[in-house]
């Protein structure tokens, strides 16, 4: 890394430097959209384990990390792929007691990130009241029931969630780490602002000053970003809004293996993640001619 390239680095270097064994990892993306797949592949290749993975909806990237045996605990709102089913490796590991799990509602987790993003110890919510979900969160130590000091109505205080490192994939970043995300941002902006460090992979790295004429369109300012990695199709097989649709065939194939068992998923990881040296090698192996990527790009163009 030189002075002229700012925070730009490779995925392997960024992950080796910022994702440490036992870290609390804030996971970007949601369901089939903008999951940081290239960065997650790199975590798997480097075998960085004992991770606590946190986020709202945790989907494909979490399941791969669990299948690789790298996850000790998750704190999340949901673990699933909606239409494409549950997260099979995660579900089995949770049921066997190998992965600890801390349930939240999505607003509860988003509120915990918001507290972290504001430098506050906690923020209140009026969700959760009266439920077993609240009882579990209180027992786990990150929620407390209290009352509003003004009105006396019940509220739940939610402890700030501060990931050691957040990993997200974005449409564009400049070399200083200013980030533009198109489409929905799910929980990611506050998660990044709360995190101690953040790695952003982006479809495209653009020169300093590219966003200068539209600074209000910067989704995440450089103050929060530690490293930026250029990786076209870095969310594949999940989608990036305005860039490419999700690859249903790839997601179905992974889920069919997940349903079959952990050994099937390990073989998939060996053949698809460990076999290549980087994410470009994976993309080329899955889609040698680039025809799938071209079709996903066309599909997205037809929808926006």
């Amino acid at each position: 890394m030189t002075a002229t390239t700012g925070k730009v680095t490779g995925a392997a270097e960024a992950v080796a430097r910022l994702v440490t064994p036992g870290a609390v990892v804030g996971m970007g993306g949601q369901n089939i959209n903008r999951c940081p797949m290239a960065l997650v592949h790199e975590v798997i290749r480097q075998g960085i384990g004992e991770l606590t993975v946190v986020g709202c909806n945790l989907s494909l990237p979490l399941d791969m990390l669990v299948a690789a045996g790298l996850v000790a605990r998750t704190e999340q709102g949901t673990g699933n792929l909606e239409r494409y089913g549950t997260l099979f490796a995660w579900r089995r590991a949770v049921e066997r007691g190998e992965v600890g799990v801390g349930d939240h509602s999505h607003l509860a987790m988003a509120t915990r990130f918001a507290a972290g993003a504001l430098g506050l110890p906690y923020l209140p919510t009026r969700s959760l009241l009266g439920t077993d979900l609240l009882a579990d969160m209180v027992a786990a130590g990150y929620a407390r029931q209290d009352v509003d000091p003004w009105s006396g109505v019940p509220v739940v205080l939610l402890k700030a969630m501060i990931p050691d490192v957040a990993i997200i994939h974005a449409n564009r970043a400049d070399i200083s780490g200013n980030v533009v995300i198109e489409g929905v941002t799910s929980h990611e902006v506050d998660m990044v602002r709360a995190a101690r460090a953040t790695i952003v992979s982006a479809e495209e790295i653009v020169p300093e000053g590219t966003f200068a004429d539209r600074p209000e369109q910067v989704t995440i300012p450089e103050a929060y970003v530690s490293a930026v990695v250029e990786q076209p199709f870095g969310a594949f097989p999940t989608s990036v809004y305005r860039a490419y649709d999700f690859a249903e065939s790839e997601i179905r194939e992974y889920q069919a293996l997940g349903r079959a068992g952990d050994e099937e998923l390990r073989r998939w990881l060996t053949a698809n993640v460990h076999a290549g040296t980087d994410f470009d090698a994976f993309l080329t192996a899955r889609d040698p001619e680039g025809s799938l990527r071209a079709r996903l790009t066309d599909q997205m163009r037809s929808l926006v």
Partner: protein
Amino acid sequence: MTTPALEALPRELLVVEGARQIRDGDLVIVGTGLPLLAATLAQRTHAPGAKLVIESGVMFPRVVPTPVSVVDPRLMHGASRHGSLFEALGGLVQRGLVRTGFLGGAQVDEYGNINSTWVPRSNGERIRLPGSGGANDIASHCRQVVVLTDHERRRFPRRCDYVTSPGFLSGPGARAEAGLPPLAVKVVTDLCVMEAEDTALAVTALMPGATERAVLDNTGFVPEFSPSLTTVAPPAPEDLRLLREELDPACVYFPERKSR
């Protein structure tokens, strides 16, 4: 184009009855699947002014067929804003601006509580389910929750094994005592419609052809039947045409229609 004169399928009836729960001008929070089809059907028929909110941050989209995820670009199409979970579930739902929410779950109990976290196996071990997502937030803050589900005994226990999302908790008054706003719950199944407001779910209508016996045999608690029990009106031909030709033309959520 002419529509084959098919009888409505049971799950098409669910969608059409679900659509009827939406009033014109409502803000409605939905996910994907049958609830989204119900909400978009309502927009295309009696509730053109109903607006959709999606938990991922999509506000007021003009949906194109057929989204399979809350972040599907088909569901983000034509939106007035692409925001965040915090904006959708905090700024709109917790803020009290969203009247109706559609929810699913593995269990719905007598008091309209919903479980989407875990259920026990017969040997006592737990089957892990996806978890709350936005469901707890929606059930905590919306004024009306609508559940569309197949009517199976295991889905309707007297008490949920785990309360993920609050209905009326332990019974009348419990919701207010917990600090939650009032709620109406409506459960639409392939056998009946059950409704409650701070009470136990009671059957208010039967699906065409369904019997009280079938409802009792397939429910884990004993619901009361309304003295003014009605039969759900069959779908209008236009409802079925919209569902089949425009809202889910590829039968993504109706595999049973494809095979007919």
